[in-house]
């Protein structure tokens, strides 16, 4: 096996030496083909900058979310709890204000005052002056 490998390497070494003696026209043609391929790659990249950028961005976002799935789930639950708390506070606060206003209005004139005929007459009399 080793003998086989050594023989192969020796043969390959000689083949490599042969590469240095390639005809200049062939070398030039290969260089031209290489240049065309590189130009084609550059054109290919430039022709799809938006698509590539969009896909790259989406792929990065997906990779990020996939990599931080635990943290993302916890953050989502915390966000939902926060929104629920704020909404509850908003609704209950409004109700409290309405209750307070009703209490204050009712406190200025006790209900008995509206049942008192003398007070009603006094109120009409005083409002004329």
């Amino acid at each position, binding site marked *: 096996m080793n003998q086989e490998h050594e023989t192969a390497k020796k043969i390959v070494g000689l*083949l490599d030496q042969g590469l240095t003696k390639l005809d200049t026209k062939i070398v030039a043609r290969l260089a031209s083909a290489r240049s065309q391929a590189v130009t084609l*790659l550059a054109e290919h990249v430039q022709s799809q900058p938006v698509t590539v950028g969009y896909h790259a961005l989406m792929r990065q976002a997906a990779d990020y979310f996939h990599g931080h799935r635990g943290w993302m789930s916890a953050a989502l639950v915390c966000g939902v709890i926060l929104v629920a708390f704020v909404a509850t506070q908003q609704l209950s606060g409004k109700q409290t204000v309405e209750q307070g206003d009703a209490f204050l209005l009712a406190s200025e004139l006790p209900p008995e005052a509206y049942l008192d005929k003398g007070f009603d007459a006094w109120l009409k009399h005083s409002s004329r002056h």
Partner: protein
Amino acid sequence: MATSQELSDFLAEVERRAFKQTAYAVRDDHAALDIVQDAMLKLAQSYGERPVTEYPMLFQRILQNTMRDYWRRQKVRNLWTTLFSSFTSNDDDDEHDPLETLASANQQDSNEPLEQLERSQTIAIIEQALQKLPARQREAFILRYWEDMDVAETAAAMGCSQGSVKTHCSRAVHTLAAMLEKQGVER
């Protein structure tokens, strides 16, 4: 994604070996250049977004497929040529079987120093021997030893099992060694 510079560096590294590899298979320098150029363009166009580490395998697969396309086209062309060329002499290479032997042609300059001449002759003998190898053995030998791929990579590039790669490589090395000995070249 590979940059233009990375692609350029990769192609510069493999282009000469790819040309020789193709020339051994198709036995026509012009056709070999066309095939290598096609393979380079296909790599840039279809696989430019792949990382540069995948390029060696991809390029070999593309090169092998482009060579196969060439042989298919040659087969069709030869069929039509045979049908319509009954009035012309049939002394050109109308059989393009890659397993056949190519007549030897030492293209080295005769005024080089003796040592260089001997080395050039040895290289020429090896190249002829490689051309004489069965296609799969040559492919396995080149990928495994010249492209320095491991057995698994060679098997993936050739689309066969690792056992087949080992068998092809072993037979190729033994055949080449025997040919070299027959030509009086020291192993």
